[in-house]
């Protein structure tokens, strides 16, 4: 059984009866069994996957109506609620939390007969960019298992790139979909803010985070977007996309498009190999008829500081509910006063989450808000103004997704500030609400490099067309696992 096919190829084959969904899902489960000991992408695997696959096969054979997914095995980041399934956020605080309801993206995909093959690893509460902050141990990069897979949606990227599933859903607060997509060589998409409902996604920083697909191809991302984008009455921030078909005209190409190269994202600290790859990407785009020139976004240099200030503030507020009273882990109440029980119970948060909650309590507090939180909000609005100005002149913006190559596990874990700076090229899209995509571009010394394209709000379709054009110029070696 060839597991290395895209979602659209799978659907074509399943529709025509060339492959049985049961056999494919069973081969996928075997693949998980054989490689996941080494990679640790999965936190739990769906026991009913084979039964669900059999049901879909039955429907296909009897000519009954089948949902658009035809049983594609999809992995789900463990911060999205699936009814009656453990949703841990890779945290000891939610180790035994069984969600009593489906997230909107989950119910939409269920209706289309997707199979949720398992829940995948992440940094605790999506805070981090290596999966090293998972309470259940890090995931490994399938290109070289001594290296980090990126994060926080690391399990999503590992599972897609190592053929443990066909596609995955992650969440992107400051690059958490694009960063692991770049490190593991998959496509990773952060849509326009509000395009996909966040209902059922365990909140970290509501004002900037979005759910996004990780897939093998740009076309698969467009396909997933068709299924999950659009207004949801349960999420007041969702926007109307007029039922846009993102697959239609995806071959439109990029001729005549103006692309801005963001000066601040190819400057100090960039790895020379990443710089070379970026230049190659630009010349390929020019070869396809695009017009590229540099553009400066001065506020980018303050973006990471603003990002961490704003997200920590929202995290501090969102995570206040984890007091172990209504859901959580087993901890007897005897011998504690009310407040001492809660503060003891909350010691089960990992170091990174604790760090961000402490920062989040401090930066917006009376006497300090003017110096930190309000300044961060000013950076956010100035950056938005700058990027909107840039989009008057350019259709797209380009930069490497991450300025450095995937580093070794443990290399940066004790140095939070240098880890924070890895986010420099991705947080701008979150702070400004713009759509952005990471496209697998090159493998250097066995390690992947991804290229990021950004577009203006609600120009998701044009962005996917451009990404597809760039993707078609790339051939990558086989993954060594």
């Amino acid at each position: 059984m060839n597991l290395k096919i895209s979602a659209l190829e799978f659907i074509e084959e399943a529709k025509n009866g060339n492959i049985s969904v049961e056999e494919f899902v069973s081969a996928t489960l075997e693949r998980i069994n054989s490689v996941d000991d080494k990679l640790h992408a999965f936190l739990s695997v769906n026991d009913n996957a084979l039964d669900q696959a059999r049901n879909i096969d039955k429907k296909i054979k009897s000519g009954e109506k089948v949902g658009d997914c035809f049983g594609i095995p999809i992995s789900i980041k463990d911060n999205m609620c699936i009814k009656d399934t453990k949703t841990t956020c890779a945290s000891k605080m939610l180790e035994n939390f069984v969600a009593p309801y489906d997230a909107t993206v989950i119910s939409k995909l269920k209706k289309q007969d997707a199979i949720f093959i398992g829940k995948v690893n992440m940094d605790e509460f999506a805070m981090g960019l290596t999966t090293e902050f998972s309470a259940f141990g890090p995931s490994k990069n399938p290109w070289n298992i001594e290296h980090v897979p990126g994060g926080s949606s690391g399990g999503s990227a590992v599972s897609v790139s190592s053929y443990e599933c066909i596609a995955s859903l992650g969440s992107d607060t400051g690059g958490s979909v694009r960063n692991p997509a770049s490190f593991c060589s998959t496509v990773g998409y952060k849509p326009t803010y509000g395009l996909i409902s966040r209902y059922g996604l365990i909140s970290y920083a509501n004002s900037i985070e979005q759910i996004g697909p990780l897939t093998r191809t740009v076309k698969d991302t467009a396909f997933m977007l068709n299924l999950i984008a659009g207004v949801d009455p349960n999420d007041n921030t969702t926007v109307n996309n007029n039922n846009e078909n993102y697959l239609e005209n995806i071959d439109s190409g990029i001729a005549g498009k103006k692309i801005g190269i963001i000066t601040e994202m190819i400057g100090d600290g960039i790895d020379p190999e990443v710089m070379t790859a970026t230049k190659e990407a630009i010349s390929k785009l020019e070869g396809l008829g695009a017009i590229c020139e540099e553009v400066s976004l001065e506020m980018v240099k303050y973006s990471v500081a603003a990002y961490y200030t704003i997200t920590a503030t929202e995290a501090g507020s969102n995570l206040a509910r984890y007091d172990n009273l209504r859901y959580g882990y087993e901890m007897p109440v005897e011998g504690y006063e009310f407040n001492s029980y809660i503060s003891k119970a909350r010691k089960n948060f990992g170091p990174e989450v604790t760090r961000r909650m402490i920062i989040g309590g401090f930066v917006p507090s009376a006497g300090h808000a003017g110096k930190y939180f309000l300044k961060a909000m000013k950076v956010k609005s100035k950056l938005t103004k700058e990027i909107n100005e840039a989009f008057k002149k350019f259709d797209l913006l380009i930069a490497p997704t991450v300025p450095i190559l995937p580093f070794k596990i443990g290399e940066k874990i004790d140095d939070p500030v240098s880890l924070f700076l890895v986010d420099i090229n991705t947080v701008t899209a979150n702070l400004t609400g713009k759509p952005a995509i990471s496209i697998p571009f090159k493998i250097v010394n066995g390690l992947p490099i991804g290229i990021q394209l950004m577009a203006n709000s609600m120009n998701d379709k044009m962005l996917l067309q451009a990404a597809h054009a760039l993707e078609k110029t790339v051939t990558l070696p086989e993954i060594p696992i």
Partner: protein
Amino acid sequence: MTKIGLEIHCQLTNLESKLFCSCKANYREFEPNENICPVCAGMPGSLPRLNQEAVKKSNNDFNGFELFNS
């Protein structure tokens, strides 16, 4: 010009559903924990959905004041 912010609390007794979800607001004719959903239980991942009728009523009752725009 001096601007003064007022926070006014009042009970709206004739709403069909709760303020932040679509569960029934009537608590008199039901057993405990009957009218409950992931939103009013504060389950991880659930988001509040503001009752439009409540906003309308508060806007009518406090004409001339600027309240949340929905």
